[in-house]
């Protein structure tokens, strides 16, 4: 009986330790469906949802993670093509995972590094591609918005800063 009680206590302690580790690491380990990890955990889950939308070519849903004022103008297929140099139809996202999620000292800017295994359907090549997703919010009580559109759009040099 004493052994079983000890075993039970160890199991409870191990489970609680694991859940604490999941939360304080910002969702670095499987969360078992629990809303753990705080802001970093939230960014991880948004990034994974975004990649799932891309995987299934649901570009409208993928654009919905951007700020409301640019959601309509966010051209996700064009941005994908800019990133991978091929049309989205020629890409097969086989797998993706998060490398890390970080939030800056202000608590209002975040970035998530992802690793995607992508098959280029044209030449049947499989390549690992690192992707960095940037997030922003106006203050700690506001929702997070993705900045993919901002970071991948065609950049033009500002006239005043031209060298």
């Amino acid at each position, binding site marked *: 009986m004493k052994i079983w009680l000890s075993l039970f206590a160890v199991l409870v302690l191990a489970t609680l330790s694991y859940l604490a580790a999941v939360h304080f690491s910002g969702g*670095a380990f499987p969360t078992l469906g629990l809303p753990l990890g705080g802001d970093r955990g939230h960014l991880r889950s948004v990034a994974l949802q975004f990649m799932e939308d891309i995987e299934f070519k649901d570009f409208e849903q993928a654009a919905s993670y951007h700020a409301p004022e640019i959601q309509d103008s966010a051209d996700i297929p064009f941005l994908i093509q800019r990133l991978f140099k091929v049309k989205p139809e020629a890409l097969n996202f086989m797998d993706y995972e*998060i490398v890390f999620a970080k939030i800056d000292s202000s608590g209002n800017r975040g970035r998530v590094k992802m690793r995607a295994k992508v098959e280029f359907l044209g030449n049947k090549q*499989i390549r690992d591609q690192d992707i960095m997703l940037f997030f922003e919010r106006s203050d700690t009580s506001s929702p997070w918005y993705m900045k993919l559109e901002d970071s991948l759009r065609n950049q033009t040099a500002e006239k005043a800063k031209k060298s």
Partner: protein
Amino acid sequence: MISRTSRKQIGILACRYFETLLGDFRSIFLLLAQAPLIGWFCTLVWGSIERDDPKLHFILCLSAVWFGCINSCREIVKERAILERERFFGLSLFAYVSSKVWVLSGIGLAQVILLQMAVEWELNLKGPMFLQLAALFAVTLCGIGLGLLVSALAGTQERAVFAVPLLIIPQILFSEFAIPKKYFGDVVTVVEKFMPVRWGFQVFLEGAASEPRWHYAALDLLVLILYAVVLTLAATVALIPRREV
């Protein structure tokens, strides 16, 4: 396959050994604490480049074999007198060594879990986590086998501890970590195959590959487990000659 008496002896000896270890709680704590500490050091280094690479995988495997060796290298030699006395009363050497393996593998498992969690806390390792954990655990089992063999052969605890670097350094020297594989000489090629770290590292490489060959990873794991069994049996055989203590 294992007689009832041996099974009973394994249970009793494992309980006794575990209680002895629990009596020295500080040592257990230090053993367990070194794993997340090494993991944290790794994240400090590889955090600078914000990604993992094969060198990190190699260091993790090397740490795992280190844990196994250092945990077990004194465990037989320190109680050799008790062992020799109990042999007069029918103690099975196989049961004795098995009881050590059982308890030490529990500690080793806790260490590799803590090591991997400490690294993944900051940096996700490329490849399936559970495969990597299995590889690290299998490498630790080999480390335990090596440590117990040294412990069975050594005359004193100090000599056993001094022998550990002789087990660890070759893991680095006879590996791709030292020089690229294409420059390996004939001897190095053969010796490399006897290094547990090599097989664990192969599992990591397969898991992280763009197109993993899972059957190769499974084969590498099998080699590690067989290697651990052979080393444990060798430690048992090394205890057969009686020693006056």
